[in-house]
């Protein structure tokens, strides 16, 4: 830009300033308004969207699909076009040149004009770059496969519930539902071995959370306990093992107590006189805790799967195992520890608590409703008496 241009610009600018406004209050007012708007937006995002919870870092989980912040996605995508030997063009040369060009822009662009109609080249280049960045970002966002969902717990109660579920899935077959130990049935290699309980003071007092964590992660291969940590070839992530430890600690260690609100919330919802329980609220937690460990695919269970309402109602070699309204259903007779054609007492090792058996009975009698609303409708009609029970339509 030569002296003449500079001179002209200065005059023009002084002129524009004279016709302009005062910084205070005109400009400040707009600035504050925008700042306030952003502040409200941020509070809204924090309250209504929040920060997604993620599991703890697990250096051994190489299956995790890395995902940079969204504003680095375009770089990430760019690199894909420079594989192997020429990778450094994408990682160093292009970004390096781009940053350099940005720094030197005032000296590269020597065009003295300022109105957009006289700067079509500069605007064209910048426009292309911005469109390129947006396109690369979108490409990256749509081509990165979704992350398999990982279990995360937000609160202590959720953590314990998750731990309970995982315990039921992985540990019950050897250590028993309540960690009571006893003789192992149906586990290849350990058939008939008797385990000490792990739910008493002998285990809970001397073992810290860290020791428990390590036992579960590394197993005790010499005694027959397999490793569960992913670092040792097992199926569980650190977050999941921590959840199991929390479950064990808060359930079996008589020295620790849940904060009061947690205990109330964790308790099974109580049933009023004449209220019909529903699968979602009352029955699923019982099955999850006491039955699912064996009643999943790949275990000996007469092909009776119990993970969802659908499965509970329809699967099994002697299906249906639940006939709504009929207390003679296989499942009810078996939890009463009868020996019938479909099999022996369920669960095989230890009887269900009578309160839980009662919930199952009231559920079957009430027509085995799935959701809380269906249960409420059934309650409104009045729960049928055992004598009046006759098979009704499936809900």
């Amino acid at each position, binding site marked *: *830009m030569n002296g003449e*241009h500079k001179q002209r*610009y200065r005059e023009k*600018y002084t002129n*524009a*300033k004279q016709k*302009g*406004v*005062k*910084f*205070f209050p*005109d*400009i400040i007012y*707009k*600035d504050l308004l*925008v*700042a306030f708007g*952003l*502040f409200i937006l*941020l509070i809204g*995002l*924090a309250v209504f*969207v*929040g*920060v997604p*919870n*993620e599991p*703890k*870092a*697990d*250096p051994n989980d190489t299956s995790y699909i*890395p*995902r*940079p*912040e*969204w*504003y*680095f996605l375009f770089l*990430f995508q760019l*690199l894909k076009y420079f594989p192997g030997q020429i*990778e*450094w063009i994408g*990682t*160093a040369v292009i970004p390096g040149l781009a940053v350099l060009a940005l*720094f030197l*822009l*005032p000296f590269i*662009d020597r065009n*003295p*004009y*300022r*109105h*957009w109609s006289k*700067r079509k080249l500069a*605007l064209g280049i910048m426009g292309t770059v*911005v469109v390129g960045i947006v396109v690369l970002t979108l490409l990256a966002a749509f081509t990165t496969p979704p992350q398999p969902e*990982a279990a995360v717990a*937000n*609160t*202590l109660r959720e953590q314990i519930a998750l731990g309970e579920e995982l315990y039921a899935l992985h540990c019950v077959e050897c250590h028993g539902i309540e960690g009571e130990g006893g003789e192992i049935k149906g586990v290849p290699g350990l058939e008939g071995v008797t385990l000490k309980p792990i739910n008493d003071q002998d285990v809970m007092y001397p073992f810290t959370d860290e020791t428990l964590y390590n036992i579960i992660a590394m197993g005790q291969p010499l005694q027959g306990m397999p490793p569960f940590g992913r670092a040792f070839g097992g199926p569980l992530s650190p977050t999941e093992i921590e959840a199991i430890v929390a479950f064990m600690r808060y359930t079996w260690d008589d020295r620790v107590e849940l904060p009061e609100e947690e205990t109330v919330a964790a308790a099974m919802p109580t049933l009023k006189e004449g209220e019909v329980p529903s699968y979602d609220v009352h029955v699923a937690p019982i099955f999850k805790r006491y039955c699912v460990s064996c009643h999943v695919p790949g275990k000996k269970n007469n092909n009776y799967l119990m993970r969802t309402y659908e499965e509970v109602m329809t699967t099994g070699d002697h299906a249906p195992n639940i006939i709504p309204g009929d207390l003679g259903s296989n499942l009810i007779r078996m939890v009463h520890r009868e020996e019938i054609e479909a099999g022996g007492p369920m669960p095989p090792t230890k009887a269900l608590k009578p309160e839980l058996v009662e919930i199952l009975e009231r559920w079957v009698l009430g027509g085995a409703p799935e959701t809380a609303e269906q249960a409420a409708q059934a309650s409104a009609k009045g729960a049928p008496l055992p004598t009046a029970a006759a098979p009704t339509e499936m809900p």
Partner: protein
Amino acid sequence: MLRRLFQWLDERLGLTTIHDVVLDRKVPKVNWWFTLGSASLFLFLLQGITGVFLTVYYVPSPDHAYDSVQYIMNEVRFGWLIRGMHHWGANLMVLVVFIHMLRTFFYAAYKYPRELTWISGVVLLLATLGMGFTGYLLPWNQRAYWATTVGTEIPGTIPIIGPFITSVLRGGSELSALTLSRFYSVHIWFLPAVITVTIGLHLYLVIRLGISHIPDEND
């Protein structure tokens, strides 16, 4: 009485001069896009405030970082709000700073006499991105860990000096406690200091040179 106090202070601090130079100056008529610079400043200050609160409970070690963030989210009163605002504020700041850059580009505000304003702006843009990169690792969750693993691998592909850069970033060959403490210190000390000083220069230039006018067809 108040008047006397003000005069006493003014004589020593030059309040009237500051008022005249900073607040009472004339500026050309501009539009709403010109608020984005001060919006960036606002977001930076807000990040500073929420960030300071987060450091009260955050522990930068691989053993405790994740749990301390869980603690902030679940136990600390309004911890979730502070973290949420810091999280979204970071995203919004990148966006706002970038659009601010596009607006100064579009109105050719980088030309004479505002070249240095632009250059200091580029430093601010890079430092803001650096804040995002270093802050992303701090929660020490899966997303953080793997994104940073990949992110620090990238400079490693540069011939000859690449592996050296990666090992400086990581403080070793793998992500470790050293990486976390390095990122933490860069995130809360080094980059904020760079940004603060550069914003000082940036704003000094903006006030000294005045905000540019919107170019018309003859410009």
